[in-house]
């Protein structure tokens, strides 16, 4: 891995993180206001510039940092101190394996738009995700608060439960793509397939029927595995403990759950962790199900091959790279919007409903999906003879 590629990747990574996380507070407030026919945050200003309320995140940060940091009596001091960091770090480093673009050669250097192009990328995400449990769980316990304790029992049970569903749901996708590397998935999803291609194999239409070749769909995860997309999204949102899966923190039930004893920036870190995770979820879903950084029906290699004669290979690669990043960010934003829609429109599940959904609905469905996918793969192999 050339040094320059890491640099570029890290640069974009930092950019996204820095931009997205604070902006999320604004998004949350503005979008909820939109949905509830309010105006939303619009008071904070710098020299009269309100910038649609975009100043508010900055004000929030200042407020949190300057707030008193309390330490409850009887708390486990060390654990209480480190828990917020344990909570936010996994969310941050999850981004390392999510690709924003492919690999581009420009002016003799290789640019790979992913921080760590790991062979076991998705597994890495799951492993990191499982570490995230500690942050929430220890927080509730360390504060020596009964609500916090209830929150932490709930959060540990919920997160362990949904990790199971999380892993099993996407196995069908792994079976189809045959890889855990997210960049490979991105490349594979640039392919298309003929919706009615099977007719040729079965001899229902003549081999030279052109219309069959025209009707194609991109090989996106959501096209191949539509149900797992939604199940995966559900499981991820439950992992993130945001509404409607916010039973561990449920304000009206157990006050604030596991982070009840936190204030100031430590509290802020929990919030930030959740928001970052919203972005991570969107990025992961984009990479796995929504074709990653590419536009549908437009393979990147075709694009570069098309542009190179006109602008030269370097410029073509650069255009492709810029396009890729923008496409990726666009998809992510759309997904964030979608998640916010859910968060602001669904009531909170009851705790037993959360567990039932995980164990009795998602898990059986995903197991059935594995089975069906296997059958489907066998059928396709049989029909196409490959």
């Amino acid at each position, binding site marked *: 891995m050339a040094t320059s590629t890491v640099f570029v990747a890290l640069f974009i990574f930092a950019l996204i993180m820095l931009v997205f996380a604070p902006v999320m507070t604004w998004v949350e407030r503005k979008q909820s206001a939109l949905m509830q026919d309010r105006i939303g945050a619009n008071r904070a200003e710098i020299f009269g510039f309100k910038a649609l309320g975009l100043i508010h995140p900055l004000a929030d940060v200042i407020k949190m940092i300057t707030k008193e940091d309390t330490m409850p009596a009887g708390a*486990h001091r060390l*654990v209480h101190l480190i828990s917020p960091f344990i909570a936010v770090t996994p969310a941050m480093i999850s981004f390392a394996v999510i690709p924003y673009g492919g690999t581009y050669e420009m002016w003799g250097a290789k640019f790979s738009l992913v921080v760590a192009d790991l*062979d*076991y990328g998705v*597994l*890495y995400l*799951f*492993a*990191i*995700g*499982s*570490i995230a*449990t*500690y942050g929430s*769980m*220890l927080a509730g*316990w360390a504060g020596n608060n009964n609500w916090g*304790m209830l929150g*932490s*029992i709930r959060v*540990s*049970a919920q*997160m*362990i439960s949904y*990790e199971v569903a999380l892993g099993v749901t996407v196995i069908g996708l792994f079976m189809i793509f045959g890889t*855990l590397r997210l960049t490979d998935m991105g490349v594979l999803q640039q392919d298309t397939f003929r919706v009615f291609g099977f007719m040729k194999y079965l001899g229902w239409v003549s081999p030279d029927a052109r219309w069959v070749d025209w009707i194609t769909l991109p090989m996106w995860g959501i096209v191949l595995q539509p149900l797992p997309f939604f199940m995966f999204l559900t499981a991820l949102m439950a992992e993130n403990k945001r509404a409607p899966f916010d039973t561990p923190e449920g304000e009206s039930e157990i006050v604030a759950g596991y982070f009840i004893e936190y204030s100031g920036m430590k509290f802020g870190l929990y919030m930030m962790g959740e928001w970052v995770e919203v972005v991570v979820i969107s990025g992961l879903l984009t990479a796995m199900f929504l074709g990653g950084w590419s536009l549908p029906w437009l393979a990147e290699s075709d694009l570069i091959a098309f542009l190179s004669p006109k602008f030269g290979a370097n410029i073509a690669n650069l255009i492709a790279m810029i396009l890729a990043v923008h496409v990726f960010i666009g998809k992510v934003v759309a997904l964030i919007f979608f998640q916010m829609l859910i968060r602001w429109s669904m009531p909170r599940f009851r705790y037993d409903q959360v567990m039932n959904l995980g164990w009795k609905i998602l898990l059986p469905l995903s197991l059935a999906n594995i089975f069906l996918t296997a059958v489907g793969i066998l059928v396709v192999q049989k029909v196409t003879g490959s």
Partner: protein
Amino acid sequence: MKLAGLLTPQFWVFWIFSSAAVAGAAGVVGNVRNPINSALSLVVSMLALAGLYVLLEAQFVGLIQVMVYAGAIVVLFLFVIMLLNLRGSGASGAELQPLTKLVGTGLVVLGTLFLVRVLATGRAPWPDVDPSYGTTRAIGEALYSDYVLSVQVAGVLLLAGILAAVVLAKKKVD
């Protein structure tokens, strides 16, 4: 030890992770005050071991180590400790006597020497391995071809474990 050896990242990775693993293990035993502390030490040890696995180019096992041990098993320990509300002293058992500590330490040293004597198989140099060594694909293909029976048995075992846990932990209805 050559100076060059000190400069390789592997050298540092090994020493950092192995001392963390050993220290974590010692923390599990030595933390008398609160079982939660023991559990947290255990996590440190587990994660450090995962690092050592990755150093040994067993990435898959390392990741599974994180997911299973750190992500599930220790969480389960914590969960149970919290559920039983064992905080504070008393429930955690007697304090360790100085003599016990001494004997324990001695036993660790003696036992380690003994085991090292057993495990010393000659210092073969590391062989070169295939790039696919330890990858998910390699392990997965081995598991589902040569060791498929073991996988089946493991599945049955897991099922039995689930049932056993449910039956044991369930409160009596009447």
